């Protein structure tokens, strides 16, 4: 790809900066941003509090008054980004991790699967199979802890967001809208079409790694039966 260069740096107040690389969703830029974030995070700078890769850029949250800073934090953050870019990003393949997500697509867990299937002009079973066959990537984590925006949906299954969001979507629900899949970490309100549910716990603060997903992960969905869904499993 062409050399990655920021479009600009936007202060998010005086304690963070958003370094933007694209204003639209570009999968190559998205992947590069994730690797850049890993690199910046890896420097373990004492004044940096959080490095957050988003769809088209990354945010660096900092302590602007940290005693280790020799320049203002905004400049230091931008210098860090330039240094990392100059050094060169790790190759995409080097940081890829695959997360397998068992999903039960049975109707009691998939209230919107029939509707999605009808729109795609296939049977619910075929729609589930299409969803499970895809090769997916985590584009961004946001909205709620562990809530991953997962790209790579078969265009046949692309449906708009639902006109009326549901007040409560059960935790673990696998839902689609436009060209993305999400998995709800908690029972929260949501406007995406629910096509299945995973027994995995998406975010568990008590776990060594609280979030099941990280930005950049490759994701595979594996169809499971009702009986398998109810079996206790460990990720």
């Amino acid at each position, binding site marked *: 790809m062409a050399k990655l260069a920021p479009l600009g740096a*936007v*202060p*998010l*107040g*005086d*304690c*963070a900066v*958003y370094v*933007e690389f*694209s*204003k*639209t*969703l570009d999968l190559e830029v998205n992947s590069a941003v994730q690797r850049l*974030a890993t690199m910046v*995070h890896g420097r373990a700078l004492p004044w940096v*509090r*959080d*490095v*957050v*890769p*988003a*769809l*088209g*850029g*990354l*945010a660096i*949250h900092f302590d*602007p*008054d940290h005693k280790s800073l020799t320049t*203002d934090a*905004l400049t230091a953050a931008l210098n860090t980004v330039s240094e990392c870019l100059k050094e060169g990003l790790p190759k995409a393949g080097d940081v890829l991790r695959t997360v397998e997500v068992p999903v039960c697509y049975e109707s009691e867990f998939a209230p919107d699967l029939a509707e999605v299937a009808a729109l795609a002009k296939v049977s619910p079973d075929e729609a589930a199979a299409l969803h499970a066959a895809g090769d997916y990537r985590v584009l*961004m*984590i*946001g*909205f*709620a*802890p*562990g*809530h991953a*925006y997962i790209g790579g949906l078969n265009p046949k299954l692309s449906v708009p967001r639902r006109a009326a969001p549901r007040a409560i979507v059960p935790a673990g629900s696998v839902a689609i809208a436009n060209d993305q899949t999400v998995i709800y*970490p*908690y029972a*929260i309100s949501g406007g995406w079409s629910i096509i299945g549910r995973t027994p995995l716990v998406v*975010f568990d*603060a*008590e776990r060594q790694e*609280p*979030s099941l*997903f*990280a*930005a950049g992960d490759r994701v595979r969905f594996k169809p499971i039966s009702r009986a398998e869904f109810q079996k206790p499993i460990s990720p």
Partner: protein
Amino acid sequence: MSITVLRPGLLMTVQDMGRHGHQHVGLCPGGAMDPLSLALANALVGNHAGAAALELTVLGPDLHFERETLIALVGAEFEADIPINRPVLMSRGSRISISRAARGARGYLAAAGGIRVEEVLGSRSTYLPGGFGGLEGRVLKRGDVVPLAEDATRLSRERFASLKNKDKKGTSVKWHVPAFTVPDREPIVLHAIEGEHFGDFDANVQRVFFDTVWRVAPDSNRMGYRLSGPPLTRTRTDEILSGPTCLGSVQVPANGVPIALMADHQTTGGYPRIAEIASADVPRLAQIAPGGTVHFARTTLDMAGELRKDARMRMENIMRGIGWEYGK
């Protein structure tokens, strides 16, 4: 050692300075809405600034103290049967009753040695949306037993004994600290820099944003403050790519009602950000209750830095004063 909740008041939770380093997995730092008042409450009982305390909201609780406990309630001007903004030694088996906040919205009740609920991801803060941290990840309710340090009584006695200027009753002191995040009058002024999408709003809407006295809506909470006023209509109608947000970001959803992001905010958002509130002013916003009013003043990053410096110097002065009273 513990404190028992006899009556919970409104939205009382355990909070400290929050958990940094998890925003990349969608978890915001959270923590005290007004960290400056938390730091003062802790200093008054001899704790480090980030020890866990009770965060009170608008209506305070009735509490029972199992053993002798040194406490301090700082922040909003709560009507209470103990003096506020100073250390108070509660005797064994005593109780306090805290009612409404006459001014401000949030108070911090710190106890010597801190509140000792389990740490989750490096913090004792309650994160309500995720249901973890604090006491069982929830708002405190009647009958809850809030754990204190095992040696809280010893710490309480020793620390109170070292205070110089005690009052006549011998249970508190003759002085108090100023709760400088609590507003004298409203609307309060919030300094804000232009947000990434400020230019997406036409000149008239931009002017309206800075000219309006905004009212904090009833459905405001620890995640965000909704601001009632004239709707802010964006000129452009294309969807923006979801991007990161920050404490103090002011987002404008399609309905035109701006939302100022507070401690438990979402880490990313797809709404245009019209402004970013200077970090020094966020604790002051946290002291505005629903129905209260705010006003935005345009500022620069440099000025936001000056405001931070000013707040830091005021804090350092007060902290020095407290240290002196403790004979340090």
